[in-house]
């Protein structure tokens, strides 16, 4: 069976060039970057070069890049690191209700350790409002952490404006940019960003490597102790193959950025316009314009997202209903609920996330298969028929947000 991969927000294939670059640092140039001899120097040079490339992708300088194991570690280090290093200045943190669990659960952890956290709501498109950020700031606020692009609905947040506000108030601004880096142009200077977490496997580097950008002068406390790696901020022997891979992937992403954004945007727009035209009772989730180039997210009324996904899988199409992180569990997404969707509508969601390897033919096949599946599932749904002509409106007071 033909297999089509439409789940690039979950992970991406490693670029062959990236894999080749990384492989060399496993087998041939295997030195420890901290060693004094030639093998070590060879590895150190590669790490330094990779740091330059990663910095260049986001408009930072190399000494502002700290390699991590991925997005979750970067978010933890940024949020807890800033909180612990700045607790004398205050104990208040501002975030949003639609963050990834790497941010939400870290904030919840800090709430158990003397910090208070404001979880900002979002509008119907999943966007944080600047006024809400402004109103949430107190004289105890030490950190604002708002994601750059949402992993489920793809909505791009007004990061630049939030950053400007934070800068004016002397508050640190962290952004979880895991979905955006490599897929959307970023300049940390222009966007007023103090800390930014990225993850390699979201842009064709291997899993298990990522980086945290920390603007020069921002105070962060280390969470992992040991050797003096990453300038005493992240102990542990450098993952040289991963770092080399991340550097190579960053280099390629920077070169291809404009082309990729245009290409994916076209495929995405075609999916959105045809799905909206071909299938009744469907809702586009996320912002119509301010969204990741490869992201389309729909709610199909009267059906369960789970059945839809499995049917697509049996047809060889890999999509998702939201975040891939809660394995097995297909509870309604906290993001969709925060955007005001009811449980019923949130349950019928489908996320398509495109990558540079996807083709127009794959999109054709998807658009051919999808309506058949939706028709069949709706024909079986007890909800469909009776209520197909009524608006689903059943606000659920029991929804809770993380």
């Amino acid at each position, binding site marked *: 069976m033909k297999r089509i991969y439409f789940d690039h927000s979950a992970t991406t294939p490693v670029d062959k060039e990236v894999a080749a670059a990384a492989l060399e640092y496993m087998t041939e140039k295997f030195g420890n970057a901290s060693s004094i001899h030639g093998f070590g120097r060879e590895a150190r040079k590669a790490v330094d070069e990779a740091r330059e490339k990663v910095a260049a992708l986001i408009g930072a300088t190399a000494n502002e890049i700290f390699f991590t194991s991925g997005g979750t570690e970067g978010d933890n280090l940024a949020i807890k690191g800033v909180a612990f290093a700045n607790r004398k200045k205050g104990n208040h943190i501002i975030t949003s209700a639609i963050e990834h669990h790497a941010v939400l659960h870290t904030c919840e952890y800090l709430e158990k350790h003397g910090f208070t956290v404001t979880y900002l709501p979002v509008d119907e498109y999943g966007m944080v409002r600047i006024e809400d950020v402004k109103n949430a700031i107190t004289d105890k606020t030490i950190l604002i952490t708002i994601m750059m692009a949402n992993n489920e609905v793809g909505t791009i947040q007004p990061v630049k404006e939030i950053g400007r506000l934070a800068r004016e108030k002397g508050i640190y601004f962290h952004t979880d940019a895991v979905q955006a880096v490599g897929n959307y142009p970023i300049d940390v200077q222009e966007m007023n960003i103090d800390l930014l977490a990225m993850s390699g496997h979201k842009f064709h580097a291997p899993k298990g490597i990522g980086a945290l950008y920390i603007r020069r002068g921002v105070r962060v406390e280390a969470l992992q102790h040991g050797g003096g790696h990453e300038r005493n901020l992240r102990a542990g022997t450098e993952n040289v193959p991963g770092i080399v891979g991340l550097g190579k992937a960053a280099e390629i992403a920077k070169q291809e950025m404009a082309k990729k954004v245009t290409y994916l945007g076209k495929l995405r727009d075609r999916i959105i316009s045809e799905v909206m035209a071909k299938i009744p009772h469907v809702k586009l989730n996320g912002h119509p314009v301010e969204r990741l180039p490869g992201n389309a997210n729909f709610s199909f009324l009267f059906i369960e997202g789970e059945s839809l996904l499995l*049917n697509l899988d049996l047809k060889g199409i890999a999509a998702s209903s939201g975040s891939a992180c809660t394995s097995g569990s297909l509870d309604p997404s906290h993001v969709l609920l925060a955007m005001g969707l009811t449980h019923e509508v949130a349950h019928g969601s489908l996320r398509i996330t495109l990558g540079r390897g996807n083709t127009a033919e794959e999109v054709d096949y998807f658009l051919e298969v999808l309506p058949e599946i939706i028709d069949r599932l709706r024909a079986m749904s007890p909800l469909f028929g009776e209520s197909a002509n009524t608006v689903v409106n059943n606000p659920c007071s029991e929804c809770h947000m993380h």
Partner: protein
Amino acid sequence: MTAKPKVVVAMSGGVDSSLTAALLVHQGYDVIGATMQIWDSEREETDDRGCCSLSAVGDARRVADKLGIPYYVLNFRQLFQETVVDYFVAEYAAGRTPNPCIACNRYVKFEGLLQKALALGAEYVATGHYARIGYDDARGRFLLRKGVDQTKDQSYALYHLNQRTLKHFLMPLGEYTKAETRQLAREAGLAVADKPDSQEICFVPDDDYQSFLAAKAPASLKPGDIVDTHGRVLGRHKGLPLYTVGQRKGLGIAAGRPLYVVALDTDRNQVIVGDDNDVFASELIAGDLNYIAFDELTAPLSAAVKIRYSAREAPALITPQGDGQVRVSFETPQRAITPGQSVVFYDGDIVLGGGIIGKVVR
């Protein structure tokens, strides 16, 4: 489309459902494996007692990988909470002794999974139960029969299946003994071939009802009097749900002769105890009936009747009461007939139907 019929196998990670999947793959079905997620996956788990625990998912996934079939974990948490856990708690609160596994079979494993399977375009759902399903030309309907292995027969827990559901279910293990199943599983190279059978109620940690009910339904654990059959107070009980009809131990009464729980009186919040003789009764009234071998029971019928999973069948006369209930009159008195448990009627191997015991007639 492919000509092979598509079947969703309910996989628990145990030997029975694993072999079921293997047999159907071997028979040429287009097999999809599925495990029902019925309980909070975020609960930390270090044991593997439940049939649907995280480690069960791991075992089932490995079996599916070995068989080369697609495998999914399906979310049934809300349905399970509503139809099994809430029922379990409510039944105890009403002084009955529920059988959550039957409720789970009926609403989750059969109705719920069948809906999901049909939504996947499958024609059948298969389970690893020791029971046989077949179409009977003479009667023009599907029949449910006991499994060939009388010691493992699970037809008691399946009496709620009906003509609509039976035609979509496959239970290939009904033709095998448990020993044959294990042998076939070993031959098929399934790593779970020698895994022990699961026993306890999967959602009650450590089988500790008291703590579970104290947390989920504290109102159901109201202390009250233990009385004899004449109403004389003999002691105190810690809440009706903690007592079962027929129980002898743990009453905390020194009476000089063995005492047994005879009944639970919810109106008076009393545990009624008596002699062993008092635990026996000859008649019961059952409701929530389902018949498989025929549509309705219109005249008295002699059958072999089973009052709990582990009970022996006993001959009885089943008489419809005209109000959706039946009176079951046994030839000889039966020990510890328990309201809330299922009563199932047999004719030889054939499951005629069954219902839920409402009350015991003395």
